[in-house]
């Protein structure tokens, strides 16, 4: 009878038995790589295991969100090249799913592995890692209206490639003006619509739609309602330049393999 046929084989680690003639000692193998987190794919990052004994991995802890930046996609292979992650949609890349930032770093693989992974002495595990940039996206959140609704403006490119944008929302003094969007270089100017008494009639939603619906402006920035009512009548703002963004920088990714070294007992 197959011992695995009982339906649930998820079991506590202490139920694993050391084979006769061997001695298990708990062992942890830290690993780390210094990488620039810029969205680049890093292939075949090695984890070299000791050559004094076979290593039985029972848990992998992985810090996929170092330095407070973005997270990473990761793909692990065991000592024989077998992938531990797979899928048709993503070539086996998955999130290690750590808690964000300072709350700690429990990963998707940071739970007991069932089954344990046997690695011969001196073998190498390979990891593919694609960290999201820990740089920034240039953007600005602007208040429009009274009480204000807040519009989030975001550059259309990540990092320094998206720098240089600015926004200016103008309330015309003339009556019967249409809502218009003009773009000169990297500067976007929104001129609000007015009625016959020169009172502004454009809402925050109108401004958002105008920016997103004007190809030249949409090529520079995206607009969305961040907080408040989009039906609020918009008011003038700016001109104001977006803060400068940075590209990703070098940081340390790593974790720990946790398991046992299996030593052969002397006869």
């Amino acid at each position, binding site marked *: 009878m197959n011992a*695995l046929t009982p339906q*649930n*084989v998820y079991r506590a680690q202490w139920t694993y038995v050391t084979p006769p003639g061997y001695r298990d000692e708990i062992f942890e193998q830290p690993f780390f790589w210094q990488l620039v987190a810029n969205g680049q794919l890093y292939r075949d990052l090695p984890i070299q295991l000791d050559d004094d004994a076979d290593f039985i991995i029972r848990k992998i802890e992985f810090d996929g969100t170092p330095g407070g930046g973005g997270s990473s996609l990761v793909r692990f292979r065991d000592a024989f090249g077998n992938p531990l992650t797979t899928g048709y*949609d993503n070539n086996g890349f998955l999130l290690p799913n750590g808690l964000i930032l300072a709350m700690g770093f*429990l990963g*998707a*693989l940071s739970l007991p592995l069932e089954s344990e992974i046997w690695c011969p002495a001196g073998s190498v595990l390979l990891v593919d890692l694609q960290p999201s940039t820990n740089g920034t*996206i240039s953007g600005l959140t602007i208040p429009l209206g009274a009480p204000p609704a807040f519009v989030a403006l975001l550059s259309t*490119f990540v990092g320094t490639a998206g720098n240089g944008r600015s926004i200016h929302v103008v309330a015309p003094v003339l009556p019967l003006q249409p809502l218009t969007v003009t773009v000169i270089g990297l500067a976007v100017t929104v001129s609000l619509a007015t009625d016959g008494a020169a009172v502004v009639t454009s809402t925050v939603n109108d401004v958002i739609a105008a920016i997103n619906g004007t190809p030249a402006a949409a090529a520079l920035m*995206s607009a969305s309602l961040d907080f408040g009512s989009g039906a609020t009548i918009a008011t003038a703002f700016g001109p104001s330049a977006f803060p400068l963004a940075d590209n990703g920088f070098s940081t340390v990714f790593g974790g720990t393999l946790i398991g046992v070294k299996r030593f052969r007992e002397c006869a």
Partner: protein
Amino acid sequence: MYARHHDYYLPLPTIPVNGLQGVQLLLDNDAPFALRNVRKWQRLGVPGVGSVPWRFKLPTGMDQSSDFRFPFDGFGDGLVIRPNAIYPPNGAIVVDVNNTLGAPITGASLLFRGCKLYRDGVVAAPTYPAHCSLLPMAYEVPVMLQPTDTVRNIQLAVRSNADFVVRSMVARPFTLLVDGQPVPPAALVGYYSNLLIQLKDQDQRPYSNLPIPIDNLVGNSAGLSGWPSVTEPGLLVSEIYVPRSKALYFDLFRTDLGEAGGRPINLRVQFQGVGVFQR
């Protein structure tokens, strides 16, 4: 006998100041239900979190508790029911809920997790081959969701080289950002507040009576959704065995109106478990 993971979700009506007595959760007629875990849930932003003590009746009709449970109990990993309470087909779980807020409470619910117990042969019950090798395995399915969105029949397609046994799940919004590349639509830090999931097997047979708040099934290591914020992968009990080249399906229902700022999210739903390689 085959034990199949099942969740019964009970959205509660508005709980008046003097509570609710005798709320019935009607169970399906296809199999007995072994109750193993009970947890409480409430929609983010609604007052009354932690003010809904509850208790329910066991199959014998006896109350599971001599009094209402402490209001904060039942969040997170919930109450483990051991030994399991086995309800008959077509039975009902009767629930009493109290209200310690002093005002009506809306948006509260209870989740009863366990297994349906089928006689052999009633439903498909794939299992491990007589000789096999096991390797830890994880699949991940990315899904783009708008603030108000329904996406049905999302497929987890298992590869042809090995069966896959699902033992736990996690889900988290994530968008990969690459320096110098266009900003994807879901780039702003996004989260969900009201996201429901319904898991289904190859034959579209659901693992729950209703779509359930996703954190109750998958856990959420991002911790950014509404209460409760489960920080460990959600365990499926019992595990779900998916033969090679077969599939699981799931539906997602998102209704984040103002809470998430109206942002789309790229949700990555991860299935964790073990690959079964036939020898």
